[in-house]
């Protein structure tokens, strides 16, 4: 016996049950719109993947840059605020000394 021939005979084509084509046509006519689900085997286009990756990278870079900018701005504002309060305190001290000195005189 020849296995190739036996396999060809065993796996020969077979027709589906009668009315298969009519059922397929009726189903297609009643349900022509594609479903929202993405077909599992539809290959994702390389260009779409590149665009998505580029967008994601830009988003990450943008967010990081914004975060760093805000951090630096806050740091500078913090230093300025402390300096401003220090100058204010110094001038209040100075004024107090002058008032006290004048009262002593």
């Amino acid at each position, binding site marked *: 016996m020849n296995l190739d021939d036996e396999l060809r005979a065993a796996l020969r084509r077979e027709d589906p049950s009668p009315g298969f084509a009519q059922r397929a046509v009726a189903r297609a006519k009643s349900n022509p719109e594609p479903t929202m689900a993405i077909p599992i085997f539809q290959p994702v286009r390389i260009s779409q993947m590149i665009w998505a990756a580029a967008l994601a990278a830009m988003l990450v870079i943008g967010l990081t840059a914004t975060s760093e900018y805000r951090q630096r701005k806050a740091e500078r*504002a913090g230093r300025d*605020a402390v300096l401003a309060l220090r*100058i204010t305190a110094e001038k209040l001290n100075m004024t107090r000394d002058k008032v006290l000195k004048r009262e002593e005189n």
Partner: protein
Amino acid sequence: MRRIFLITVIAGWTAAQLPAQLLQLRITGLDGLASKAKESVDITLDSSLLQMAGGFLARNGKGSKDSQDITSLLTALKAITVRSFEFNETGQYRIEDLEPIRAQLRTPGWSKIISTQKQGEISEIYTRMEQGKVVGFAIIAAEPKELTIVAIEGTIDLKDLSKLGGLGVPSIPIPDQGKKGKQE
């Protein structure tokens, strides 16, 4: 009809601007001094920057008492403006240069609580009160080789300021805020 409409719009706009202008002390007339000064400080922090500054100090102050005090003080403020100049020589500015600022501080709402004048030196502290609370605070400190203007906007308790020992903020004799204490 159109004229009446315009007048109404302008009047409405002016009325809306007035409270803000009264509160906001504009430090003008000192633009040329920075180039003559040995050192100068120019700080303007609005409410959003003060908020950021408070956040930064809270995160980096490691929970210290000073840091907490400063942060709570900053949260109550709306704006801080500081202009300070240190000169090598005397005569780099004139007392008349301060007139535009002092004129604003003479408008209703502002009270001069401390003032000293001696041999060309001026020290003045002003407050602005609203409903029994200090909502504005200004210092003019003019010496022969140094000039400093400070304007702070917001709800300030001067006693809180005096608590900031770590910054060298002094405990000053604060006159009764209900009175217009002038010491000249």
